[in-house]
C-alpha cells in the first residue's frame, strides 16, 4: 500500500461567473486538507475564488478506445448547428 497521502484532483473557479476548471492534483489525507493544499499550491496569485476537490479514484473517465462510438456519431448531425439553415439575409432577428 502506498504511504503517500491519497491524490485529489483540483478544480478552480477563476472568477465569479466562470465554471470550475481542472488545474492539477494535490496529495492530502482528506477533503479539508486537500482544499488547504489546493489553495497553497494553485492560488498563490489570486487564480481563484472557489475550489473543488475530489478523490482522483472517484473520477470515472470515458475510455479513449471507445471515443469513436461515443463521439463520432455527433459529427454528421450538422442540423444541430444554426449555420445549417439557409435563411434569406433580409430576414432579421433569427
Amino acid at each position, binding site marked *: 500500500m502506498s504511504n503517500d*497521502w491519497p491524490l485529489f484532483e483540483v478544480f478552480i473557479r477563476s472568477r465569479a461567473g466562470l465554471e470550475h476548471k481542472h488545474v492539477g492534483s494535490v496529495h492530502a489525507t482528506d477533503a479539508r486538507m486537500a482544499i488547504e493544499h489546493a489553495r497553497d499550491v494553485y492560488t*498563490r496569485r489570486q487564480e481563484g475564488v472557489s475550489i473543488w476537490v475530489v478523490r482522483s479514484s472517484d473520477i470515472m473517465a470515458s*475510455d479513449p478506445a471507445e471515443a469513436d462510438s461515443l463521439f463520432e456519431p455527433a459529427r454528421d448531425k450538422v442540423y444541430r448547428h444554426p449555420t445549417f439553415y439557409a435563411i434569406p439575409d433580409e430576414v432579421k432577428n433569427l
Partner: protein
Amino acid sequence: MYTQALDSLGKDCLPGGSADSAALEARFQARVDADEKIEPKDWMPDAYRQTLIRQISQHAHSEIVGMLPEGNWITRAPTLRRKAVLIAKVQDEGGHGMYLYSAAETLGISREQMIEQLLAGTAKYSSIFNYPTLTWADIGAVGWLVDGAAIMNQIPICRCSYGPYARAMVRICKEESFHQRQGFEIMLALARGTPEQHQMAQDALNRWWWPSIMMFGPSDTESKHTAQSMRWKIKRFTNDELRQKFIDITAPQAEFLGLRIPDAQLRKEEGSEHYHFGTIDWSEFQAVLKGNGPCNRERLEARRSAHDDGRWVREAAAAHAEKQRARTAKAA
C-alpha cells in the same frame, strides 16, 4: 490523475501483436506530427511514456532540490523586501515541483515512487543545484542566470506533445517570469553598490557562468536523447541552439551590469547576432553529474532528512483522517 486507471491499462490494454503495435505507433506519430496533444489515457508507445516519466520527474526533482540553495539565504536576506521576494520565489519552486509531479503521475507513476528514486540517488536532477550559494550575490546570479537558462529551456516545452506536461509548463513559465527579473535586480543593486558589493557580484558571475551554460546539456553531437525527443515533440530545439540563444541574450546584460563574463574567448561575431564562446569543460559537468559536485551530498542529505523527519507528521495526518472516517461511518 487516473494513476490507478493507468496501472491496469498498462497490463490489459497494451497491444499484443507487433503488427498491431506498429499500426498504433504509426497512428500515434501521425497525431504528434499533426500537433495534436496526447492525453493521459490515450495510447502511447511505452518508450514515449518512459521518456516523459524520466524527464518530468527529473524536472520536478530539480525544482524541489532547487529550493535548497536559495532557501539557504531566506534567513539572511538583507532587507525585508528581499526576504519576502525570496520566500515567494522558493515557494514558487516548490509549487512548480508539485505541478510537475502531478503531471508525471498521470503517466502511471506515483509521486512516492519518484521521491523514492530521488532519495535513493537513482533519479537525476539538474546538476546546477549541486553548486553552493556562498554569498548574497549568488541569489542574484541564480535568479539571473540559472532561472534565465531554465526559462529558455522551458518555454519550448509549453508546446510539448504531452498535454499535462505542456499545461504545467505554461503555468510555470508564467510564474517564472518574475524570478529572473528579481535576480537581475539583485545583481544590478550589487554591481552599482560599494566596491565590495561589486566584487561580490563579479565573484558570483565567475562561479555561476559555466555551470549555467552547461545547464543546456551536452552538445548535440553527444546528446543521446535529442533526436527521438524531437520527433515526439517533447523537445523542440537542440541543446546547442538553446545554449547559443542564452549566451546571445545574456552577454549584453552582463555588459550592462558592468561585469565581466569569465570567458576570454567570448566575443560578438562580425556581422552576426551571435557570440562566439570558449570551450566548455565537460569533465566538470560529468563529475558533478556523477555525484562529485560541491554539494551533491548535502542536497540529497537535506531532502532525506526532511523526508525522514517528516514521516511521523505524514503518518499522524493519515491516522487522524482514518479515525475521522471511522467516526463518521459509525455515526451514520
